[in-house]
């Protein structure tokens, strides 16, 4: 069940592009010590774009492009580990309310985004969601 090398390479190249875009965004607007708005915006926008992936004819035609753009670019662009680390840091600083608002706010905003976009976009097959 190992994915074909062609898809792994597509995800690797896409992931590199997405991660650099995330890095660039945090260079332009660093998260600071309060609510991590930049990471929040990255995760919400990346989730919305993943839900919209199959509006793109290129992604519908080619499984390689779908892997490069979905689990690749958008998987690399969004980050779950940073939200964990930011929430841990807020908790360690005794800012439990802010940590909860950040964690719950990110999840809810991402779910609303993918649900709204999903009304207009074709559903993703399992492997493109990764």
């Amino acid at each position, binding site marked *: 069940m190992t994915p074909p090398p062609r898809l792994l390479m597509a995800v690797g190249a896409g992931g590199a592009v997405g991660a650099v875009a995330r890095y660039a965004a945090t260079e332009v607007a660093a998260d600071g010590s309060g609510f991590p708005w930049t990471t929040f915006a990255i995760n919400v926008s990346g989730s919305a774009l993943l839900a919209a992936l199959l509006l793109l004819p290129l992604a519908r035609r080619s499984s390689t492009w779908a892997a490069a753009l979905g689990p690749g670019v958008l998987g690399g662009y*969004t980050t779950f*580990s940073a939200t964990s680390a930011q929430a841990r840091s807020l908790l360690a600083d005794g800012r439990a309310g802010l940590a909860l608002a950040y*964690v719950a706010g990110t999840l809810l905003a991402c779910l609303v985004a*993918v649900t709204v976009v*999903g009304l207009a976009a074709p559903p993703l097959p*399992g492997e493109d969601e990764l």
Partner: protein
Amino acid sequence: MTALLVALGAAVGAPLRYALGHHFDDGWHHGTLAANTLASLVLGACVGWSVGGSALALVGTGFCGGLSTYSSLAVQSRDLGLRRGAAYAVVTIALGLAACSLGYLAARL
């Protein structure tokens, strides 16, 4: 230079997440769950060790950021439906926070 290290780390992390998903994702997305938990553990250790500069760009921003994903978590949760989706998301977030704290504390020992 920093951007190159971020790209390099993500070029390893993202395919690892994809392979984990292919091997272990079923009705519960265990592969994605494992990728997000592992990335949180490693990033927590990086913070605990006060890793900075080039190493943080490569391992933290690149590898952990590429290995973990929020976009898939959101779409998968939606597709699981309200109850199972909420349970999957809450378990992912709880495990991520626990793994990150564990990594941080282990690095501080």
